[in-house]
């Protein structure tokens, strides 16, 4: 377990030693702030529902930037050989890397908690729906991170890793648009697979088992695939 933390710590320091972390942090927070202002100014209601939707949209674009190098860089520089010949299980490597990126992502979420204090100061927001909204966006981001880590484990090229995760995230995020032309069970499947309806429930204060299971199983599924993906034994 201590090795999982050692890897997580190493990942986290790597983020803060490269400019990409600061670019993502500053960009995310500035864009979020602008949208927060615009949405509150327009809606004139003490709710973060639409802010969460914008955050979700932005994360579709930002998270692949955070995760693209997690495994691909190790593969490119050969440090993966160092990790995988050290007495540490592949599961611990994957978990450590996931934990590191999760902590960084949680930092971004924590910085947006200020929005709650601002609307709390000026109005009477529904605290419960804000709390569940934060939980929802955090779960969704965590799912996106797992997808990003998975695609990063497929290649030693960061760009390919990023583009692959864009493809997956776009299809999950925009799948709702295709449901117009679908009907019956197909419609239900696409609706469930897409992220749209799941976060929607959280932002209005609903925590349903189906939504939580959706995110958690998605995360676990991606991490298990990553775990097997980095194993060289598949190509014996």
């Amino acid at each position: 377990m201590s090795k999982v933390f050692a890897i997580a710590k190493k990942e986290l320091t790597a983020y803060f030693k490269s400019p990409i972390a600061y670019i993502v942090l500053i960009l995310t927070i500035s864009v979020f702030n602008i949208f927060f202002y615009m949405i509150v100014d327009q809606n004139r209601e003490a709710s973060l529902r639409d802010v969460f939707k914008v955050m979700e949209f932005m994360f579709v674009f930002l998270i692949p930037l955070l995760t693209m190098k997690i495994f691909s860089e190790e593969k490119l520089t050969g440090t993966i050989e160092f990790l995988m010949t050290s007495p540490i299980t592949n599961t611990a490597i994957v978990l450590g890397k996931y934990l590191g990126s999760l902590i960084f992502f949680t930092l971004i979420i924590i910085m947006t908690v200020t929005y709650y204090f601002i609307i709390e100061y000026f109005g009477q927001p529904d605290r419960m729906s804000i709390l569940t909204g934060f939980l929802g966006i955090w779960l969704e981001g965590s799912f996106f991170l797992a997808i990003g880590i998975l695609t990063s484990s497929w290649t030693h090229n960061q760009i390919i890793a990023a583009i692959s995760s864009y493809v997956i995230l776009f299809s999950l995020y925009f799948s709702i648009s295709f449901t117009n032309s679908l009907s019956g069970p197909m419609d239900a499947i696409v609706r469930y697979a897409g992220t749209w309806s799941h976060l929607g429930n959280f932002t209005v204060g609903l925590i349903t088992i189906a939504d939580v299971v959706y995110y958690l199983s998605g995360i676990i599924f991606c991490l298990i695939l990553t775990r097997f993906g980095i194993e060289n034994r598949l190509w014996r």
Partner: protein
Amino acid sequence: MILAQNVTKYFGRFQALKDVSFEIKKGEIVGFLGRNGAGKTTLMRILTSYLPASSGKIVIGGDDVEKNSLAIRRKIGYLPETPPLYSNMTVNDYLKFAAEIKDVPARGRRSRINEVLEECNIGEVRDKTIGVLSRGYKQRVGIAQAIINKPELLILDEPTSGLDPIQNLQVRKLVKSLKYERTVILSTHILSEIEQIAQRILIIRSGRIIVDKTLDMLLKDYSDDQCAESTLEEVFVKLHSETSEGNNE
């Protein structure tokens, strides 16, 4: 210490290792020789459990590489061909990280890091970022990483490639100083180097072991038909010209 039996390795249809068998005893220093692409790195990667063998069996210190790879990894220190370094870390942080994931007990970690810094002669760059170091320093940081957990078996893949003569000498000295404590396998194509360090030579050609002898024996065998004793280089060239003629068999 190491027992390899009929190890083969396929990459797709390409057979990188053909029926490789050998035994290495504790405390031996063995040199893997061979041209580029002969299969040295593949063999080392299989020994370290980084790659699985397609068939065959390898036992290191009583543990099967296939079944107990974690136990194996605790026993070995490995320096791949390109030192596996994180260029944005400082030498100190990197070694600390290596010590953490290689089971160096937390209490002795700091003193162990100081020891390897001194042993590898890199104390003066301990606070520098690895990315700015010269090739020679990087190589030595790579060796420091490999010996940090006091492995019984040290596997070095071309530890001196790309170094200038002085750095080369330093690395060689370092490897020599290590050999008193442990079994060492190293690969190189700089033959004079192996002559100075290794006691036993395994020559690999196209995935097959064609020579497995002590250095003295090998030189003696090939000096029979000549008046003067051969150098390893002459033997190497001779062996490769012989086998390339017999390539069609």
